[in-house]
């Protein structure tokens, strides 16, 4: 076990999370990947999806709409435009988020935007399905 590293989740407005994490799973634009201590430095764009943060024995899931990750050996910074704890995404909140995402999908003009919006809708629906089950 390689020990812990510093994980920071930063939104434009404030630092949302700053913990010593064991591992963090990120929704990279080319596929999910997990960061552990001593990871090679990477700068990656993120697609809409959930971050799984394993720290101090607990796991937190955070939904992000977009952002990017700056991975260094002992520091992981995720700059996310919009981040919500999955536990807060329930009922009406989730429904309205899905509506917003679907509206964005309809409004998307180029392939890149459409792909991002589609991912967001799918991810949110998966969350909704998970909750219902």
């Amino acid at each position, binding site marked *: 076990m390689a020990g812990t590293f*510093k994980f*920071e989740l*930063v*939104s*434009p*407005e*404030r*630092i949302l999370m700053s913990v010593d994490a064991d591992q963090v799973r990120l929704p*990279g*634009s*080319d596929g999910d990947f997990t960061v552990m201590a001593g990871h*090679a*430095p*990477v*700068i*990656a*764009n993120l697609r809409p999806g959930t971050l799984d943060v394993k720290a101090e024995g607990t796991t937190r899931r955070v939904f992000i709409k977009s952002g*990017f990750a*700056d991975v*260094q*050996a*002992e*520091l992981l*910074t995720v*700059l996310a*435009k*919009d981040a919500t704890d999955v536990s807060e995404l329930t009922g009406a909140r989730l429904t309205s988020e899905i509506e917003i995402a679907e509206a964005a999908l309809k409004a998307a003009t180029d392939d890149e935007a459409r792909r991002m919006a589609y991912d967001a809708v799918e991810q949110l629906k998966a969350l909704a399905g998970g909750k219902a089950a």
Partner: protein
Amino acid sequence: MASLKDMRNRIASVKATRKITKAMQMVAAAKLRRAQEAATAARPYAERMDQVLASVASKVPTREGQSPLLVGTGKDQVHLLIVMTAERGLCGGFNSNIAKLARADALKLMAAGKTVKILTVGRKGADNLRRDLGRQIVERIEFRGIKQVNAGHAEEVSSKVLAMFEKGEFDVATMYFAEFKSVIAQKPTALQLIPARIADASVSGKSGAVTTQGATAVYEYEPSEEEVLSFLLTQNISTQLLRGLLENAASEQGARMSAMDNATRNAADMINKLTIKYNRQRQAQITKELIEIISGAEAL
């Protein structure tokens, strides 16, 4: 000469004014604290953004076909000035100082034969520039009734700016806002947004908080340098705009607080002066009446 009743009314009115300015000062002080917190809380994001952007930009070779957000359109004919001001007045020279700086730059550019377009954020800036630069204002954005600016508002402005840029409506964009130095000092500042001014990678690496390997770390990029860079560049616009909006919000409250503090003090001085004058006049009248009575009694 004003009658005693007039003077009493005058004093009452100044006292009422003092109450209002005092209340406004206290409200501004409370709002200032919140605005300042918001501005401080937003700083880490902007700093990390700068750092990463600098390190990515230094990796990607500057060449033809590079994102115009970074290298510009190759011209500097049309300038867009984004002028950020407050929605309300009564905050000292805050609005007019920003407008003054923007106006001076606009006139300089126009004298040099460039085309100037102005986008105002906030009602007061538009009002201030409308008289002499009304024709240059292409877009007005107002955030009335919004208590706290957030990333969503910055996003709104940035999407408008980017849409204009994509249509080729301008070559260079500069943002005007008041940098929050302290409660009593706000500095009107111009900041170039497009093409992006990238901080020197070596400098930002040194100031980085926990940069274990410094700016020399060899990064991998996913999906590719170009894509990461183009994403960062668009993000950077809204980040910078948010920074401007938040700094402005804090500056506005700071300016209002000191302006209202001055007004309260002026009102207090005025009340003192008026009260002395009122008392003198009252005494004079009493004396006059006494003389009249006495001389009346003597005449009998």
